[in-house]
């Protein structure tokens, strides 16, 4: 919002006579004329109303650049509009920047510039754009009480959020995953738990799967392997007559009782029967029994 100030009233009417009425008025408007500091930009508007047929001679307008040693004209724009009685109103927008470093509060003046109006034969010059304002220093020269509170302080260090909690949670989650994986390996008798004493059938089932299909020798080896698993499962050597006691001790295997008895019958025939006797248990049945026992072992 601009505050209207009458900076220069009616312009000069130096020559009397016929040319008196060519320029009706020259008025300059600006912002509040005080509290201006070093570096402030001043936007002024000069309104010049001329009679017909006079027109503004635009070549007489000031060029952007240094006006004084502490004042610089940044730009200048002119708009033209009709005025009453066939006159013409020119709005000359000027933008200054002051670099005046005031040591104390004082009055400064934007100097006027001279423009000319002409009707082709006649020519008139007028002063426009003068504006006076009060400028102030950026800060007092002398120190005052409490000044130190106003001094620039160091930049606030950026707040870096802590990731410690997240790292701890990540580590805990990884540890939990590792623990659960170990538990799974333990439960399934994977390496390195494949030889643990409480899961003899799991380890045996894997070997028996390979051995059982390798002819009579492989089948005998598979029978022996299952015997050793039974021994480990019971904690001592398991003979055929002990199956009942074994199943009472390890009820998890009770539902495979018939298959276990068949296995021992087959083993007796193979190992203690007359020469040339073969195991009467099929490789598939042997493998299935080993897997069933391993499964029951996991469930127990």
């Amino acid at each position, binding site marked *: 919002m601009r505050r209207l100030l009458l900076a220069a009233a009616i312009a000069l009417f130096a020559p009397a006579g016929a040319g008196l009425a060519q320029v009706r008025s020259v008025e300059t408007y600006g912002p509040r004329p005080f509290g201006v500091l070093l570096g402030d930009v001043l936007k002024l508007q000069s309104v010049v109303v001329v009679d017909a047929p006079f027109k503004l001679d635009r070549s007489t307008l000031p060029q952007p650049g240094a006006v004084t040693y502490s004042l610089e004209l940044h730009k200048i724009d002119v708009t033209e509009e009709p005025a009453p009685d066939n006159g013409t109103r020119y709005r000359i927008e000027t933008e200054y920047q002051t670099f005046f470093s005031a040591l104390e509060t004082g009055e400064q003046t934007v100097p006027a510039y001279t423009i000319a109006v002409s009707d082709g034969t006649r020519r008139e010059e007028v002063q426009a754009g003068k504006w006076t304002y009060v400028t102030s220093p950026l800060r007092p020269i002398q120190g005052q009480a409490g000044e130190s509170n106003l001094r620039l302080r160091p930049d606030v260090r950026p707040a870096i959020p802590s990731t410690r909690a997240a790292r701890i949670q990540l580590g805990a989650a990884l540890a939990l995953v590792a623990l659960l994986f170990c538990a799974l390996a333990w439960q399934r008798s994977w390496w390195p738990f494949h030889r643990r004493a409480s899961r003899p059938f799991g380890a045996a089932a894997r070997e028996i799967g390979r051995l059982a299909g390798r002819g009579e020798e492989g089948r005998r080896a598979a*029978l*022996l392997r299952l*015997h*050793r698993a039974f*021994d480990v499962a019971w904690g*001592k*050597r398991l*003979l*055929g*007559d002990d199956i009942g006691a074994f199943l009472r001790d390890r009820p998890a295997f009770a539902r495979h009782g018939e298959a276990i008895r068949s296995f021992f019958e087959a*083993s*007796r025939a193979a*190992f*203690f*029967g*007359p*020469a040339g006797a073969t195991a009467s248990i099929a490789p598939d049945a042997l493998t299935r029994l080993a897997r069933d026992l391993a499964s029951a072992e996991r469930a127990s």
Partner: protein
Amino acid sequence: MSVSTAAGLRPETASTDLSLDAWRDRAHAFEAEVGRAVVGQPGVVRLLTVALFARGHVLLEGDVGVGKTTILRAVARVLGGPFERIEGTVDLMPTDMLYTAFVDDDGKPRVEPGPVLHHGEDLAVFFFNEINRARPQVHSLLLRLMAERSVTAFGKEWSFPHLQVFADRNRVEKEETFELPAAARDRFLMEIAVEAPSETEVRRDLVFNPRFHDVDRLIGGLAEGVVDHRRLGDVGRAIQSAVHASPTLETYVLGLWDALRAPKAAGVDIAGADMDRLLQGGASPRGVSALVRAARVTAWLAGRDMVLPEDVRAVFSPVMAHRIFLDPIYEIRRDRIVPDLCRQVFERVPAP
């Protein structure tokens, strides 16, 4: 599974020439008949039956009054054949077994055949009661009688082809007793521990049923001669050749033997015993062959024609335990150490 007909034993109806199947039926009948007088001791009766068909002598050991003598008298009665018994005493001399010296009606001293020779060479059962009360000299004679089934008396050799020696001793008293020498113990096929029956009903019956109060009448009520004692040698040989022992079983028995001779190497560990010096000897080849003999008979009695580890296990302690000789410092704990040793041997040696 039935066994095949063995050489010399054919399926005939005559009692002198029966198949092994028929002989098995006889053996079971023998057990059943003995079981009428000996209640609550099926294990002991089975072992005695095995010993009969394995042609081995038996030593019964147990507390006083548990029925050792009754068991042996019952076995002798049901077996049939001439039976003789002698009581072991500290002043018993070997000649007392062979000769009976007395003054006859004419006042002349006379010497007649003693207990061993009384029934001549057909003697079937010789029962030596309280054997550990007899002196070592007597043990020596008994050793020859058991090992060779022969003695020399009246200037000639007496042979007893059908002889079965039963002996018993109680393990309570140690005073005025003579421990059997190792060689004599080794001649016994089995040393069977007799315990008092544990079943309440059996104990109640033994105490309150008057039938068991009069032992003579109890034994007298048993059928005599259920098996023909003169055929036992042939049947025993037929059983040994008919029942098959596979190479796997041979390996298993040898493994047991190795473990018994070197228990430390087999992983046996007995609490409170230095395994390096625990054993002084024992587990002789004779003992292991006796083990296999008894195991074959056990398999035959179970109706099998092949020996299983279970058969070996069933007779292992009775056959082998008394052949294990411990270092003297461990001998006093024998009752605990030897069963533990036998148990661990079976737990260490894989079968098959």
